Structures are given as C-alpha cells and as structure tokens.
C-alpha cells in the first residue's frame, strides 16, 4: 500500500485489506441481524416483520430477543410493505425483511404509495441482493432493485460495503426518520471496515487516495475495487476509491470532487449498469463536471446459477475487470486532455 493509500485507510480505520489472511469473510446479512438487535435494544418502537425467511435474512436473532415485537406474516411481500406502513403510522419503526428480489421487487407500488408518497417510517431490508446469491439462479438474484428504489421520491437507499458497515447502516436507518431501503447480500465477503470507521448516511467515504482515476463503488464489490487499486499502483496508476454507500441521497460534492481531482471515473456495483448507482454518478457528473466514466456491473443480462466467484467473473465485476476498466478510463482521460 502506498503512503497516500495508507493515509486514507488509516483515517477510515480500515483493516489491512491487502493481507488476505487478516481479512475476515462475513456475509453482510450478518451485520443486518446484529444491527437490528441493537436497534431493538435502543428503541422499543422497533419491530421486525418477516415473510417466511427469518433465518436467511438474519431476523432470527431479533425474534429471539424480542418475541412480542417480531411479526411473521408468511409469503406475502406486498403485505409486508403495506402492513408495515400501518404499523409505522401508529408509531412503530418497522424493519421488513425478505429477499430483495421480492422485497422490494414484488412490492414496488406498495412501496411507492404506502411508504414514500404516504411518508411512513418503514425500513426495507433486501437480502440476497446481487448475483452473488449464487446457485439459486436468476429468479432470486435482484440486480434491478437499486434502480426501482432510487427513482422513488423521498426514499433513502443504502448499500453498505461489508458486514460491519451493514450493522452501522442498520442502526443509522433505525435512528433516521423516513422510508428507506437497505440492500445486503448472502455470500461471505471481505470485512474491510471496523466499528471505528465513521459512518454517516449520505456521506461517501474515501477509502484510498489517488489522483489518476476515481473508482466509485458500493456494496461487497468495494473490496474488489480496493484490490484492483492496489494492483494498479504497482504499475504507477494511483486510484482514489470511494465507498459510495448511500445511493440516495447521493453525496454529490464527493462525486464531483472525485471527477475533478482524478479526471476519470469507474463505477462498480453488483447491479444492472442501467439505472443503478453508476447511473446516478453519471447524472451528477453530466450536469456538474463531465468526465469519462466506465461502468462495472451487469450489462443488461439476467443472472444464472454458479458460485459467487464464478458469477462475479462472468459478469465482469472481478478485480481484473475493474483494473481493465480503470485503464480504459485513463486512456480516455488522456485522449481528452490531449485534444
């Protein structure tokens, strides 16, 4: 790790992610489960509603800790949202959990009407997001959910980068008034943050400094972005890596600063490149600071069965793909500057 890279990592209290042996592998859903229990301890109004997936969404800990505040409604994802809106209208802080493919995938209109337009304090916990769900295949791999949530006015959309941050995000959303979507994943993934890493909704984090290209990432692929940046540094290419965990409201100054300081941007997300986090970055930069952008994500395809690693590679989201995108962005930036 270079000195500048170390400086940013130190300020963010990251683990030494370059040492694979030092990096714990924990699913982000575990962080949700831990955060929900803590949120329940802090606030009696927090209730949890689940659609027959308490173990895999990690609501079972809350269920054991607060049985009278745990509500099981079976396989009924539209009900999940609308009922939660009713509970919220009566003063509760409901977290509702199922797979992201169904929650919010199946319940979009209920989310729009009963949560957002109606302004109720409901928190959607979308589990098993992304192709990293793995063997379950395309039907269960939500890769359009960020798009359908961020398009709704008044929604907050958060995609934390690892298990520790998912816990922080869960607690932050419990304390934040308003409709929100929290997205997390099934597979084990690298834990790069610590409890000491500062976390604030809507404030992007610079995990690595660099001036050649900015990699703006969210979710479990932030780790791949950091590793790609480290490998590129060996060739003298210094990347800034921004953990852009809050998709809405996005930290526009941080995005503009990254484009201004680096001159080119690569976005990285486990989602369709159409309509997701990278699209929002492009909207911001098109209006405020146009720069070459390369988009890492799923390019207008559905998922399929496979291991998380196989699928990450197949859909061009691995370390080598990110590094190649950085090189393309750098080439475009240099060509632009030469004009």
């Amino acid at each position, binding site marked *: 790790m270079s000195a500048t890279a170390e400086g940013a990592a130190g300020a963010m209290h990251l683990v030494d992610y370059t040492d694979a042996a030092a990096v714990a592998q924990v699913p982000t859903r575990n962080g949700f489960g831990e955060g929900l229990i803590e949120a329940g301890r802090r606030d009696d109004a927090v*209730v949890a509603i689940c659609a027959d997936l308490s173990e895999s969404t990690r609501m079972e800990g809350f269920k054991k800790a607060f049985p*009278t*505040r745990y*509500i099981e*409604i*079976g396989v*009924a994802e*539209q*009900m999940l949202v*609308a*009922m*939660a*809106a*009713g*509970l*919220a*209208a*009566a*003063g*509760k802080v*409901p977290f509702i959990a199922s797979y992201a493919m169904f929650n919010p995938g199946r319940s979009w*209109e*209920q989310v729009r*009407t*009963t949560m957002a*337009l*109606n*302004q109720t304090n409901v928190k959607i916990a979308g589990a098993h997001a992304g192709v990293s769900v793995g063997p379950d295949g395309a039907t269960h791999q939500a890769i359009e959910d960020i798009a359908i949530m961020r398009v709704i006015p008044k929604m907050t959309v958060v995609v934390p980068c690892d298990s520790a941050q998912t816990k922080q995000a869960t607690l932050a959303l419990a304390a934040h008034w308003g409709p929100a979507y929290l997205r997390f994943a099934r597979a084990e993934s690298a834990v790069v943050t610590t409890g000491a890493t500062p976390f604030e909704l809507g404030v992007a984090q610079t995990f690595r400094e660099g001036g050649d290209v900015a990699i703006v990432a969210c979710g479990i692929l932030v780790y791949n972005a950091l590793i790609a940046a480290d490998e590129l540094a060996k060739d003298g290419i210094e990347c800034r890596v921004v953990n852009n965990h809050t998709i809405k409201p996005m930290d526009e100054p941080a995005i503009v600063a990254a484009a201004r300081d680096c001159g080119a941007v690569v976005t990285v997300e486990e989602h369709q490149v159409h309509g997701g986090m990278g699209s929002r970055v492009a909207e911001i930069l098109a209006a405020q600071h146009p720069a070459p952008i390369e988009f890492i994500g799923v390019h207008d395809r559905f998922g399929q069965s496979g291991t998380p690693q196989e699928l990450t590679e197949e859909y061009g989201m691995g370390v080598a793909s990110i590094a190649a995108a950085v090189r393309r962005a750098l080439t475009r930036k240099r060509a632009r500057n030469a004009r």
Partner: protein
Amino acid sequence: MDSLTPEALRELELHANDVRQGIIRSLLAAGSGHSGGSLDMADIFTALYFHLMRHDPKNPELPERDRLLLSCGHIAPVRYAAMAYAGYFPVEELLTLRHFGTRLQGHPERVSLPGLETTSGPLGEGLAQGTGMALAAKIDGADWRVYVVTSDGEHQCGLHWEAMMTAAKFKLDNLTCIVDRNVIQIDGSTEDVMPLEPFADKYRAFNWEVFECDGHDIAAFVDTVERAKRVKGKPQVVIAHTVMGKGVSYMEGDYLWHGKPPKKDEAALALRELGAARELIEAGRR
C-alpha cells in the same frame, strides 16, 4: 348497546343528505371524479363520523382516536364531504376538490390533509395498512379501533386476501372491514367481471366474523357495527348492501356513473332531488 333514538336517526339522515349535496357540489366544481360510489357510501360515512367513531375534528392527530381508512380512494368525495360537515375544515373548501394546490387531492393524500390516516387510490391496500395499525394498537394495549372501508371490486386484489389471513392470525378484534357491496365496478357487474360470490362465505373461511346489512339504513348499520365491536378474538366484516349513486335517481344502479361527475344541469337536478328528500326528513322531525 343503545339504539339510535328516532331524533338521533333523523339528525344522521340530515347529515347524510348534507354529505350527498356536498359530493354533488364538489364533483361539479372539480369537473371530474367518481359520483356513484361516493354517493352510495354517504350513509355509512355519516354514521361513522357523526355517531360511531371516537374522534375530534379539531384534533385530527388525537392519539386515542379510532382510525378510519378509505381503501377505495376514488370515492374520496364522500370522505371529504363527511369530514367537512363534521368540522375538520370549512365546507366551502369542498369546491377545491381536484384543483391545483388543493388539500383535497383527486385520491386522498394523508400528508396533504390531516385526518386521512392513509394515502389511497391504488386498490386493495387499505386492509393491509389497517391490519398494521390494529396490530400496533394490540402491541401497545391501546383501545382504539380501526375501520377500513373497501369497495367490493377491490376484493379482486390479492393483497386484500393476504391482509385477511394476517388479521385473522393475529386475532385483531379491534379491526372492522366495511364493504361497499354495490356489485358494480368500472367494467360492469362484479359477478361478470370477476365473480366474488359466495362473498360472505369467503370471509368466514378466512376466520372472520361476518355481518351483513342494508348500507342505506343508518340505524341498521349502526346496530350492526355495535354488534361487530362486541366480537372477541376475530376481525369482523360488515358487508353493506348498497346501490351505486344512491340518492340521485338517474345515477342509481348505473355503472356508467362509476367514474364521472355530473354536468351543470345534471347537478342541478341531483340537488333538487336531494333538497326534496331533505324536506321529507325534516317533515318527519316536525
């Protein structure tokens, strides 16, 4: 429980007449909107706002108020008119219905007008939200009740049945669903579009306590709801048999009046009919 005195009943019938006139005036001013269902629920909304519910028009956020949810938001004019005459806002404001800048949105928006409880219009969502509220009351040990007014047509939405199962599972006896059973929806009879019968049996099969009554007999409706409130351990449904467009002769039972407002001459005729009906009620009082 106490039944309505003849005097109290006549007062309610006069309020219902006011509400119907308010509906006609507001729809005429709006130039669009849903006449049929609004008129046919006038008696029930009157009974709820002027007799049955615990509420305070001057304090719409009263924590211990009963919650009234209008699931079929397109009949908002009846709710707005009942609220106005109950004292939530000036009656003249009814003439802003559906206009730019109004609090009386084409379909009700909770954040726009205090007292609405939910934002509604997309069908089939009211009972689900009411179930959440009723469960919250149970969790908190609160004694307020939840009333959800639904159309019969919206029983074709799957979400409504999800809510029916859930309300029964949690034994929400503080929840009463009121169905506007006018057998009419946009494309015709509910029994042609997508049959709902045997309707009451479906509720029974979902472990609900079922009541039926004439939705235009205010005394019968009040009595039915009072009986429903005494049920323990089960949610209740009141299937109110109604006639679309009730109170305006040329609209009654005609599905073409589901989604349109009266024109000026039609409104004048409706108001003449309602004025005559009012005189009959007042004659009964004297």
